[in-house]
């Protein structure tokens, strides 16, 4: 019988990679124990053809400042953008359990700083009420401290800050966002008060931040919010 042929041993991760890369396991030779196909056996076949809708397609030519009529001689920037859903339930529960009055945007800022690493030496936090404050070193600050500094309004001007914008509306999905000339990376969160879900859009300058890196950072941002105890340490 051809039982062996019909059932190729493969690790779950290898199966997932093969599925994602559109490769049939039958075409591969396994190097794991007893011929098991492992991740290293799956070729790094970049899918050149039409990209599956893994994320919201990057809005290609969103010009810098559409309202500016005078053509300024600035080199055109290339943008990328990714969007994701956010499960805010765990974070809301944590904030309630902590019994302290720390606003959501402080946790979002901390998560964004944690997720974007070196791009968040400073963060420009734009709250739902429109106030905008720059905070230095947000990845090293507790959310409560970020909230304090935001309220104090200390504007630590910094080179190329990460911009985090919080919009408190519901039922709206962001699909494109502008990127100010002085920054390379921006996360826009749409989350109405008290809701358990939200939407996030990450916009990046493609020259400064690669697409792969940008996508990874947005995933990390989402994961951080879904495991919010991590935001405290």
């Amino acid at each position, binding site marked *: 019988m051809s039982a062996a042929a019909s059932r190729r041993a493969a*690790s779950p991760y290898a199966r997932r990679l093969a599925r994602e890369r559109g490769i049939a396991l039958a075409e591969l030779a396994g190097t794991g124990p007893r011929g098991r196909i*492992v991740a290293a056996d799956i070729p790094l076949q970049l899918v050149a053809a039409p990209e599956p809708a893994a994320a919201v397609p990057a809005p290609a030519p969103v010009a810098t400042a559409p309202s500016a009529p005078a053509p300024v001689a600035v080199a055109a920037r290339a943008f990328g953008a990714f969007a994701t859903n956010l499960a805010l339930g765990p974070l809301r*529960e944590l904030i309630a*359990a902590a019994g302290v009055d720390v606003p959501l945007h402080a946790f979002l800022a901390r998560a964004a700083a944690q997720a974007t690493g070196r791009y968040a030496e400073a963060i420009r936090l734009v709250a739902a009420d429109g106030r905008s404050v720059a905070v230095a070193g947000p990845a090293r600050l507790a959310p409560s401290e970020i909230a304090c500094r935001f309220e104090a309004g200390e504007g630590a001007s910094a080179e190329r800050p990460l911009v985090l914008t919080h919009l408190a509306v519901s039922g709206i999905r962001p699909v494109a966002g502008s990127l100010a000339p002085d920054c390379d990376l921006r996360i826009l969160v749409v989350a109405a008060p008290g809701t358990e879900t939200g939407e996030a859009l990450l916009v990046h300058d493609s020259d400064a931040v690669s697409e792969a890196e940008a996508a990874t950072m947005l995933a990390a941002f989402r994961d951080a919010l879904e495991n919010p*105890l991590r935001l*405290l340490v």
Partner: protein
Amino acid sequence: MSAAASGRKVRAVKSAGLPAELSRAALLDLYERMVLLRRFESVAQTACRKGETPGFLHLYIGEEATAVGICAHLKPTDWITSTHRGHGHALAKGMSPNSLMAELFGKRDGCCGGRGGTMHLYDRSVGLFGTNGIVAAGISHAVGVGLSGRARGREDIGVAFFGDGATNHGGFHESLNFAGIQKAPAILVCENNLYATATPLASATLNTEIASKAASYGIPGIAVDGNDVIAVWEVMREATRRARSGEGPTLIEAKTYRTVGHHEGDPVTGTYRTQAEVDEWLKRDPVKLFRARLTDDFSVASTDELDAIDARIDAIVQTSLEFARNSPEPDPATSGLHVFAEPLNPPEALVQPVPGATQTQSWLDAVRDGIAEEMRRNPHLLYFGEGTGERGGTFAHTKNLYAEFGPQRMVDTPISEQGFTGAAIGASATGTRTIADLMFADFMFEAAGQIVLQASKLRYMSNGQMNAPVVIRVGSGAVRSAGPHHSGIYHTSWAHVPGLVVCMPATPADAKGLMKTALRASDPVIMLEPKALFATKGEVPAAEHFVPFGLARIAREGRDITIVSAGQLVHRSLEAAEKLAAEGIEAEVIDLRTIMPLDVGTVAASVTKTHRLLVVDEGWGAFGVGAELAQAMNELAFDELDAPVGRLHSEAQPHPLAPALERAMLVDTDKILAAVRSVLSGTAPTPKHWRHLGGRTAAPVASSPPVPVPSAPSQAASASPPPPAAAAPGGPGEPITMPFGDLTVSEGTIVGWLKAEGDKVKAGEIVAEIETDKAVVEIEAPIDGVLGPIEQAKGAVVPMGGRIGSVVPGGAA
């Protein structure tokens, strides 16, 4: 012939000698309560026979005078603990008949919302600390209640009801002894109804005079006719006065009889007693006796007046029956509520301050400081332990706390883990927090019933009314040949039990932070501190520091494999990771910090990055942390696994004394390295703990060398004793080593050498001095001979067991 009845001392109260406090109103109140107990249970009995109550009932019929006479002296803020036969105690203490009947019916409006039922009745509003399904379990709770009241400067007392069967149980003896030595404001009431289920007292003990047992513990014991409510009332008056005035506990033996079967459905006589005996006792029915005295001896009421009381009670009981019948069934969706506090973490642990200054501290000092901070903040925090008071603890782990907080808060206990753990639970549930220090993790099993059956279930049984914020603190795990009874860790046994939090820190900072969180939390916490780490030092935040339950620490980041560990093996895992890094393999090491709750989210996130997982755990593997995490990855991260999850545990056997045997069973760095390589190659190491027939046992057995010395460095003289952990390269001659001291010392500094290289020395002669944190240790020559090369010079810091030089035998220089 009813020998039991006729042989009893009956303390009849003459009508002339009726105590002044027993006014007409008071007497009628006693009567009314006794009637309530009787009529209520008669109705419950019928309902039980009809199958209206889920489960069966143990009825109190025939013993009413005892509960009523005792509880007449108690205030709602006093607490009673009770038995499986506790409806009478509950009603006598003031519980609403509606609430009680609904609970017997398992209905939503019962005192515990249908969670507890007959043997698990709790009512905080009237001071009912549980009827109890476990014989003798409530006695220590009442002692703790008394200590709790005293600690809070209140005159509330704890009263334990228990049967004659309990007096042969350790819970009785340990509690009486502890209550006595503490002069606890507690009263211990034995209802001697002659039979423990069906076992006659005389066939269970040679000393059937239960009151006389109090003498063993230096407290008063008094026997009383338990069917005479006035006699019970008088004895209790004196016991209450003693308890409230600080004179200490009293044992009361109320001699009584249940005129019904052990439980409803059990025959009245059974095989253990005669109808004649039952009939004899029925003549002395407490309700009938008291009714006759009210009308005939005291002339305080007419028959008609008493009939009117009876009728009123009948109506109340009938109402309770209708109430129970009409109460809704509990909502099945609520079945899982009240296992843990919601949220589990105290708010303080969820707000992390900005990282600030740190100080280098030893493990024990850091935890001790954390406890002291909490004791200063909370004056109602008590510490129970064996030698942890004036002596400062076996590991010097409570050093100076006694001086600061005194004997009433640093309570030195007898070696009776069940008794003082039960007292700690009782105290913690009634307004104080407690630490029960059981010294070694192995000893927790002496108190296992209290931890598993009482503390962990208290919140649930009581429908969230009560909780036991007690910290069980023990030194745990293997360290240097501590042997079969002092090396265990058992964390998974406790983590298996719903309602318990289990902490197993790996650093001084986490140990302090988790201890402080535990002392603010509201569930029982098992704090397992690895003894092997007591002598370690680390950076500890100088400011307030809490570590939340259920949040693992990423001890080292890596990309190729995730190693999950906890406690002392975190450090072995980190060592292995460093060795792997030299080969270009980057391992991520996760320190779980708490076993329950288990941070599977952090592990899954790491596996998403590394795609391989090895669990390294000090516990036994079967049904352990490795199995749990492997299944968690099946559920949470199956598509991320590029290799089977591996697990590495201590071998499934007791801990032997001999170092060579012990090393063979414990996890060490080399074993971790081998297991990592195995997982990286796509094969999980297979444990042999299942002992299943026909399994793959041949391979591991065959692969074991005849003399298992897996991690010993190569050594020429295999006959010599195995080298200590920190062995230096061997030279000729007999090694001179820094001796092992107690567990809290890890290293010493060489003060100086008293002999020079080449000097002749005799066995036992002092050759060097080493100073440790505790003392200066004199180092002797091991044999006659000539002092060889000095390997560690003056000023060198040497680990315990480390080699500092050698003596060459003979005199030939």
